[in-house]
């Protein structure tokens, strides 16, 4: 019997060794083969980490596409860093929206000696991964993680180019109560870190401004039936419904709201300010409002172009965070150019000095690595299109509202 065990274990080890050998054989990426032809070209790898499988894959692929587009644009332009011609290369990894996989993927990117990483999508993935990037000295910009916890660990390598929940939520709240004069507000969130964080911060602000919370309801990021909660909300006769979540829920939600004859305003965050929202909601989307950090896209240098380029390249509309992914790459490259080096140790200090006009608006970081409070634009759907309605200047002290959360 013991002999069997030994044989089995030996077999297992051989199998593992074979696997290891296979793994070893495959990794050398394309550039090494090309390198000898053009020795003067320096290859700089940019990591992209997001979920490419599972229910959130559409958003993860969107981020990766944004990074890919940036890399291609940069290569087409021909960038020089410290006098060397540079070829950028994307290393895309799938974190499966799974925190465990996220740390593995992070380690893999560090091992692959990427100069910088754009990722991850979920706060649940970005937070554990941030430690590994910090240990490896690789700067990380999350295009989409909005949990205030992400930047609270004090790592120098951790940045984000998305407003965190403590920034966007209160602004949206001030708009709802101040400008739209909402007095009786219903709030729905999608039970995710993003949706709930946004909704909680919104709730705190509108409560502080004296509005009444008619109902606080929850759904999930996989659901498409909201009739039950909307019916309950209808009974409370709110004048405004706020949704913390993203477009696959927001679209059907406003549709069902109209079917139930609810006439309240519908407002949400950047997660639903997408072309897909209008497609999913159809005519019902008319009048919906959503905030998005930054100035209106067509006022941004390159904003409109970006959307067109994306569509031409990938044959689909921008889902959500592709512009953030795109800008994140440029933030890194600008820092590299200023430092004259693609070595993370050298250009890392330059990232915190970033002052860049991106597709999403002005990008600058505070001392924690959060996006500095910029203007936030409120959009409204009119004739099947998101039209900018108003630019809301931020009020100071976003830190206070982030602290309120805990």
């Amino acid at each position, binding site marked *: 019997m013991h002999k069997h065990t030994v044989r089995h274990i030996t077999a297992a080890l051989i199998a593992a060794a074979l696997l290891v050998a296979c793994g070893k054989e495959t990794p050398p990426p394309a550039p090494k083969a090309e390198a000898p032809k053009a020795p003067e070209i320096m290859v700089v790898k940019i990591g992209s980490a997001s979920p490419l*499988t*599972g*229910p959130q*894959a*559409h958003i993860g*692929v969107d981020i990766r596409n944004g990074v890919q587009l940036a890399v291609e644009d940069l290569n087409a332009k021909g960038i020089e860093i410290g006098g060397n011609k540079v070829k950028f290369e994307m290393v895309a990894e799938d974190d499966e929206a799974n925190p465990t996989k996220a740390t593995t993927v992070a380690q893999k990117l560090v091992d692959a000696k990427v100069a910088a990483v754009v990722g991850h999508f979920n706060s649940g993935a970005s937070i554990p991964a941030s430690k590994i990037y910090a240990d490896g000295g690789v700067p990380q910009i999350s295009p989409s993680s909005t949990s205030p916890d992400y930047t609270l660990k004090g790592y120098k390598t951790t940045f984000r180019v998305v407003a965190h929940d403590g920034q966007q939520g209160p602004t949206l709240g001030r708009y709802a109560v101040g400008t739209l004069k909402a007095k009786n507000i219903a709030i729905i969130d999608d*039970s995710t870190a993003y949706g709930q964080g946004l909704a909680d911060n919104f709730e705190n602000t509108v409560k502080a401004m004296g509005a009444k919370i008619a*109902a*606080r*309801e*929850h*759904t*999930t990021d*996989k*659901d*498409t*039936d909201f*009739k*039950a*909660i909307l*019916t*309950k909300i*209808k*009974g409370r006769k709110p004048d405004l419904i706020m949704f913390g979540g993203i*477009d*696959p829920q927001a*679209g*059907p939600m406003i*549709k069902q709201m109209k*079917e*139930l*004859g609810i006439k309240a305003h519908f407002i949400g965050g950047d997660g639903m300010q997408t072309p*897909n929202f209008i*497609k*999913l*909601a*159809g*005519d019902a989307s008319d009048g919906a409002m959503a905030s998005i950090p930054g100035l209106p896209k067509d006022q941004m240098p390159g904003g409109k172009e970006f959307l067109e380029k994306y569509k031409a390249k990938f044959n*689909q509309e921008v*889902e959500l965070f592709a512009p953030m992914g795109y800008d994140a790459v440029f933030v890194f490259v600008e820092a590299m150019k200023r430092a004259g080096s693609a070595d993370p140790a050298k250009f890392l200090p330059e990232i915190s000095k970033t002052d860049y006009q991106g597709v999403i608006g002005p990008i600058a970081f505070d001392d924690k690595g959060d996006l500095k409070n910029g203007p936030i634009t409120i959009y409204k759907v009119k004739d099947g299109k998101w039209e900018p309605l108003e630019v809301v200047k931020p009020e100071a002290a976003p830190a206070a509202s982030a602290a309120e959360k805990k």
Partner: protein
Amino acid sequence: MEIFAQQIVNGLVLGSIYALVALGYTMVYGILGLINFAHGDITMIGALVSLTFIQLLVAAGVPPAAVLLLAGCGAMLVCAVLGLTIERVAYRPLRRAPRLAPLITAIGVSILLQYSAALIWGKQYIALPAIVEPLQFTVFGAQLTSLQAAIFLLACLIMAGLLWFIKSSRMGRAMRATEQNPDVAGLMGVNTNTVIAFTFLLGSAIGAIAGLMVVLYYGIGHYFMGFMLGLKAFTAAVLGGIGNVGGAVLGGLLLGVIESLAAGYIGDLTGGVLGSNYRDVFAFLVLILVLVLRPSGLLGQHSGDRA
């Protein structure tokens, strides 16, 4: 009162979709004693196929009624073939295997279907193009659209037709015989292989219609959409008494109403301790309670530990 009536309407429409999917589970379980885990994903394929048909036909300028008819038929055809294939390739060889084997195969088939769909349709949420603007009307103070009414009526019609079919047709009789005892049915001249294949075909085709309804009702399609729907529908089938066609219908409608009422009222009933965030928990709690307290379900005769 208005709100209550509305919640009942919501629940019934949602429940009729559950019921249609539940039929597929219950028919297969009745005959094979197998939980066809992949059934939710067959519904998903039905939904995405009909979505594609609608997109193509609307773009070609086909009148709405014809679009719906063709999309429905196309989805049914694809799903029926798929159901037959799955039965033949993945389940039939395991008919005499230990219980765990077909169940694990079913999980494998479910994963295969999901990721094949992801390859074909991509991972984006797909929007339904506008076909017809549904009419709105009010019943007992509840808002109802013509689409909701149509879904409910069509579901009832299909279920009634199925009940009649099983009771009165030759094939239905063969199905019932196979369900009671496949070996004896075989001895009596019933070709059990054909009967089982037919059951899969029928269940998958009905699943396709449910998929079409989901697409029309919510205006959205996604490769992962079959999973939760399948779980809920399975719950409905268990609630009604798995293996019992009438039970699946009752269970589906009941589950829809329970979910609506729970999401609508639990917050007030518990003073805000529980809320609509526990909506999915209710479905599973119903499932566990039924299995523990009355494993045969509301209308079923089989006992829960039928092994």
